[in-house]
């Protein structure tokens, strides 16, 4: 009997009794969720524009962070380092389009998906080879302390991350809905050949998309790196972004953000309140189980369109 109590009643009682603690956990969850959303945004961008599920987005986050930190360690002032890294990421976008995407232009998505897996490992190896594999501190001038506001402990860095994420979402939403390039991106996503046939310059579009995804990766890399240091595990968060995309749907920018928050908070609460029951550290699989359960109910996620199979 007490097992049922411990699973269904106990945790809620704890939440009610310690609201401030709950708030802190929630804020921690939101912060982690935002991190996931930032990474997920990169996925959505590329999927929306090229129908490719870019598995290498995680490696791009790591690669961009490594480049930035590597430059700063070489004494390059932060602003210049930032500029240089952006340049590097755009160059990377050109290279990816030329070497990987152009030859595979109308292959099935499964082939492109596997190509990005290859890209993921290539970038990891390259990043570590160029900048070394040890963990690097990334300080942004934003002290990583927290302050008390209305009894709740808030961490400055997480707030900065939240602000960046919000700004990025706004920019991207506008970019996709109203700009000329945005509409072209959506057309390309539906059908490469159709887009080519009406004169959309597929190559330039893809370079633009991958560059923007690179920048989003850089932003995520910076935030994530500043919080828990730039190290190899960064590329694993790409896996964590998957459940976020499942919830939010692969093609909607707002969906990515909302999905990220749900997974972030869900994980934290699950870990804190239900974790101890089963020995803790349920963080790394909890997200997937949530996403899985969600998928069985609504295969195309919160905002995604229903995929009808034309016979």
């Amino acid at each position, binding site marked *: 009997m007490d097992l049922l109590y411990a699973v269904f009643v106990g945790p809620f009682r704890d939440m009610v009794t310690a609201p401030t603690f709950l708030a802190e956990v929630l804020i921690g969850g939101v912060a982690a969720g935002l991190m996931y959303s930032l990474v997920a945004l990169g996925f959505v961008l590329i999927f929306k524009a090229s129908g490719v*599920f870019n598995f290498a987005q995680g490696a791009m986050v790591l690669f961009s962070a490594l480049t930035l930190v590597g430059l700063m360690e070489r004494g390059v002032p932060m602003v210049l380092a930032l500029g240089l890294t952006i340049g590097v990421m755009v160059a990377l976008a050109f290279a990816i389009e030329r*070497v*990987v995407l152009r*030859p*595979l232009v109308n*292959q099935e*998505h*499964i*082939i492109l*998906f*596997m*190509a990005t*897996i*290859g*890209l*993921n*490992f*290539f*970038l*990891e*190896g*390259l990043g*570590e*080879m160029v900048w070394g*594999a040890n963990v690097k501190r990334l300080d942004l001038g934003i002290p990583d302390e927290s302050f008390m506001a209305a009894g709740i402990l808030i961490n400055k860095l997480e707030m900065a991350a939240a602000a960046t994420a919000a700004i990025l979402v706004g920019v991207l939403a506008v970019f996709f809905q109203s700009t000329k390039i945005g509409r072209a991106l959506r057309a390309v996503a539906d059908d490469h050949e159709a887009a080519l046939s009406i004169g959309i310059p597929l190559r330039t579009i893809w370079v633009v998309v991958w560059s923007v995804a690179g920048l989003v990766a850089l932003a995520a890399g910076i935030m994530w790196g500043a919080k828990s240091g730039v190290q190899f595990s960064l590329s*694993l968060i790409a*896996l964590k972004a*998957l*459940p976020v995309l*499942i919830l939010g749907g*692969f093609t909607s920018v707002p969906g990515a953000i909302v999905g990220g928050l749900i997974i972030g908070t869900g994980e934290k609460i699950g870990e804190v309140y239900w974790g101890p029951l*089963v*020995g*803790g*550290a*349920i963080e*790394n*699989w909890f997200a*997937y*189980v949530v*996403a*899985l359960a969600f*998928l*069985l109910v609504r*295969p195309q996620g919160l905002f995604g369109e229903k995929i009808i*199979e034309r*016979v």
Partner: protein
Amino acid sequence: MIYREAGQFKTSYAADQAVFPIVQDRVVVGAFLALAFVLPPALASEYWLQAVLIPFLVYAMATVGLNLLTGYAGQVSLGTGGFMAVGAYAAFKLTTGFPGLSILLVFVLAGVIAALVGIVFGLPSLRIKGFYLAVATLAAQFFLIWLFNKVGWFVNYASSGTITAPPRTVMGFMVTGPEATAAARYVVALGLVVVFGVVAKNLVRGRIGRSWMAIRDRDIAAEIIGVRPLRTKLLAFAISSFYCGIAGSMLVFLFLGSAETQAFDINQSFLVLFMVIIGGLGSILGSFLGAAFIVLTPIFLTNAPHWLGLDISVALQKQIEVMIFGGLIIFFLIVEPHGLARLWQIAKEKLRLWPFPH
């Protein structure tokens, strides 16, 4: 060029549908298999057996398994590591729980248990496809590893959290445990791979293989001629996990000797996925070629610098290796999406058509 096909005509459907219809192929494969059982145990050095041949066999078993699921049935899976772990831990519990059981039976039972787990994680495949399914298998991967880490029962509450292979014999030879010689472990591994390789080939060329490929190529057309999607997909998950389970138990019992969950993490799933892609989706032979390629490349990379006289740090070597793997995946997907198996097939066809162009 070496083929002498004139005069080889088929007088029965059995002959026409044989795995190796051309005599030259039958002879070569037969000889190769015979030698594979005889030469390495006698001649190969401990290093070659332990570092090259046994891991190749272990990964070949896993690759065949994943190829059945992803290559033939078209269901993407990133949970190979998890299913291998199930096999390994099941085998460990079986040997410690029932010492009398013969080790071969333990392997098979481990496979069966992995198959049951596979079915559970295959259930979502009915409603979701493609990338979405990858999520379900990822859930399996992380959940299983977490399970074996957290629940002491699986490791018989050993503080180190590792499982070790107890000594077991087959027909009087010590095949597992510290005293088992590399040669004995190799022969057992090869035996398992050959038997289950043949089984896989038989499944694939029969009605089961066809129903898998039908689901992979056009599931609505498959449904209209009587293929039941869920049952077919679950069968694919079950059999694939069976192979991964055996591979997992072979990894511990015949290769490493002992292991913890770290040996079955997500990187194993990617590694086996590489082998399937590079080897060739939808080809049993491709699975062997892929496994051999991925097992041999790092060895080549470690030795190549010495041959070329420039020595590089181990870390740099590891990074180059990862880069090369990533690069090769992209290369193969562009040049030949069907991997080494297709290149092998084209080479064979060129030989048969020689001197005419392919």
